């Protein structure tokens, strides 16, 4: 409670309020703009925040994350193109509703569901993160190693075309993290004689390149795409009847979204997809899904915003990113010299509570902005792409340069931008590379420390119960989906007519 109150007093500062407002408005805008996601926006914004106080910097990014996740729904409903990936499921029913002339009703449902999902998850975050951090106090190097490996294994099931490609991406990220001077032996690795590389490849230019540069090239390949816009109308608050219809869906989606969010690496996109399927499964009017069912909007929208708070739980409590955007936020914490984990909760509770409260405020604020101004905000999609994307790239260049004032960082950003475009073309997503890069150092250092503790006896890993739990979860993360599909296929075959089993 004391932490909460001191966090609240930090937030009540006019500067902090301004920061949260900027983050929220900015978040809604980038969420709306197709191609610009909160992940890219946080990566682009990160270099700007280096000179800010850590609490203000992280609050800004967190507010942007919450609002950006919501903003995607506005474009999903009005132009059938999710403004951000987590809103992809929202378009399935949102756009048909807009076509029927019910854009205002659809936007109202999306706004309220997003807000409820977001607030629920932040409340869970406030309770769960300190508890999880307390558990993590008992973690030694072997536990952290197992946890980081578990986090990376979850990449197998994040959204994307191929589990194997996601895992390759994650491992590639870990490999990039080994560039520079080896921590324990001071031997230079993969520096190719460049003095700038002795400190390693910084993740900020890599993030900006993979998310910003690659997206610009992707956009250049779709210049002939013309969006059909449905005229934005005033947003309508859901009627009592509508709300009664969706409240069960929202409640379930809050739970699904928060849970999926807490799982390492799994963010709003997966949460929204699962929540959409669940909303459909529980609905009495399944045939209405895809034609404009309000549950089809409420489900994914509550879930993707619920995933924001959820994803912050492992990020802050354990230092393991819960989603792509929280990987960037984790990077921001590290840039500010803060290592998330139990010690952060012990040493800086007021800062963490300030971040939690900032997220709560952002959720309420975007609801207000959405209800009053969605129509106005939607107009940002009229900004010509021919001016928007050069601006993004200019910021990408300046942002990657600004951090260490090194042109090599700009080249790294550019190389990863081009690489990201090529990889995306062949169904590799950028998020696993970032996860690997962020977690790589932790994986290597904890592995080395563990083996020193165990005197190079690998088997001693299996004498620690928490490590065993994480290893089991890792195996489930890697093979769970495949085994599950096989079992499901087997069951379905057995229940087919003509089968001799029941």
């Amino acid at each position: 409670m004391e932490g909460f109150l001191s966090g609240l007093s930090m937030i009540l500062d006019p500067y902090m309020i301004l920061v949260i407002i900027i983050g929220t408005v900015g978040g809604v805008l980038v969420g709306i703009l197709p191609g610009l996601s909160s992940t890219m926006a946080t990566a682009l914004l990160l270099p700007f925040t280096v000179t800010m106080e850590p609490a203000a910097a992280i609050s800004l990014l967190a507010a942007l994350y919450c609002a950006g996740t919501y903003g995607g729904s506005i474009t999903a409903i009005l132009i059938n193109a999710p403004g951000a990936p987590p809103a992809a499921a929202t378009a399935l029913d949102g756009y048909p509703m807009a076509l029927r002339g019910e854009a205002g009703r659809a936007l109202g449902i999306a706004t309220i569901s997003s807000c409820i999902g977001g607030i629920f998850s932040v409340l869970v975050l406030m309770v769960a993160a300190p508890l999880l951090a307390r558990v993590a106090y008992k973690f030694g190097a072997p536990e952290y190693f197992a946890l980081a490996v578990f986090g990376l294994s979850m990449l197998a099931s994040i959204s994307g075309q191929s589990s194997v490609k996601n895992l390759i991406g994650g491992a590639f990220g870990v490999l990039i993290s080994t560039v520079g001077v080896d921590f324990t032996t001071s031997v230079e690795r993969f520096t190719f004689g460049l003095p700038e590389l002795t400190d390693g490849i910084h993740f900020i230019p890599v993030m900006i390149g993979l998310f910003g540069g690659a997206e610009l090239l992707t956009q250049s390949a779709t210049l002939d795409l013309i969006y059909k816009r449905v005229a934005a109308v005033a947003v309508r608050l859901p009627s009592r009847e509508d709300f009664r219809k969706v409240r069960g869906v929202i409640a379930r989606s809050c739970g699904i979204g928060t849970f999926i969010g807490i799982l390492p690496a799994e963010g709003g996109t997966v949460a929204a997809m699962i929540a959409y399927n669940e909303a459909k499964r529980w609905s009495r009017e399944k045939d209405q899904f895809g034609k404009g069912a309000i549950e089809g909007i409420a489900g994914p929208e509550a879930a993707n915003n619920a995933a924001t708070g959820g994803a912050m739980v492992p990020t802050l409590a354990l230092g393991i990113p819960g989603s792509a955007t929280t990987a960037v936020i984790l990077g921001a914490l590290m840039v500010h010299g803060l290592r998330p984990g139990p010690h952060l909760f012990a040493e800086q509770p007021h800062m963490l509570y300030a971040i939690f409260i900032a997220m709560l405020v952002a959720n309420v604020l975007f609801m207000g902005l959405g209800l009053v101004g969605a129509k106005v905000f939607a107009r940002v999609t009229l900004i010509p792409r021919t001016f928007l994307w050069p601006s993004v790239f200019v910021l990408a260049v300046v942002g990657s340069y600004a951090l260490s004032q090194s042109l090599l960082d700009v080249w790294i950003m550019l190389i990863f931008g081009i690489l990201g475009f090529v990889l995306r073309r062949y169904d590799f997503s950028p998020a696993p590379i970032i996860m690997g890069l962020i977690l790589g150092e932790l994986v290597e250092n904890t592995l080395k420390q563990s083996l020193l503790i165990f005197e190079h006896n690998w088997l001693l890993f299996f004498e620690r119960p928490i490590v065993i739990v994480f290893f089991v979860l890792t195996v489930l993360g890697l093979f769970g989906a495949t085994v599950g599909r096989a079992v499901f296929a087997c069951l379905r075959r057995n229940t087919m007519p003509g089968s001799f089993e029941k």
Partner: protein
Amino acid sequence: MSDRSPADGTKEKGTTPPKAARSFRLRADEAIGAVILVFVAVIIAITTAFDDVPTALSQGIPPEQFPRLISVIIACLAVILIIQARVREEKARKRVPLVTLLTTALLVIYVVLLDWLGTLAAMILFCFALPILWGERRYVWTAVYAILFPLGVYLLFSGVLEVRFPKGVLPALFG
């Protein structure tokens, strides 16, 4: 080996391409897997050239061990990717449009010019050239944008955030 893959592939309806196509054409994922394997080989080769560890620090894992471990994991995953490519249907991909290739070239030129012309001049040129390349024909508006936006960003970063940008080789020569 090639006799086995059709049996795996035929389990899923419609996923098996014609036999001839499968045996002669290299699939994208197979090519990617092969490129990754070559990449891994290069990485492992580089790790053999790491400096020797000072004896005082040689207690723990040698510095090349961890990158090698990760490389081997990547290689195993690449082999799985190649195997999967044999049994999965290949996605049709559009050719990369010329404008994307030109955009990539422009990005590279922009970063080269940063060092030559200085940040502001390079930004202005880039902000004019990219919209034109992307089909923007409102030249006056483009010019206005190409001057105001870079100027705003430059002033924000150099003034407020105190970033010292590269001044460029050419302005220094003439200045």
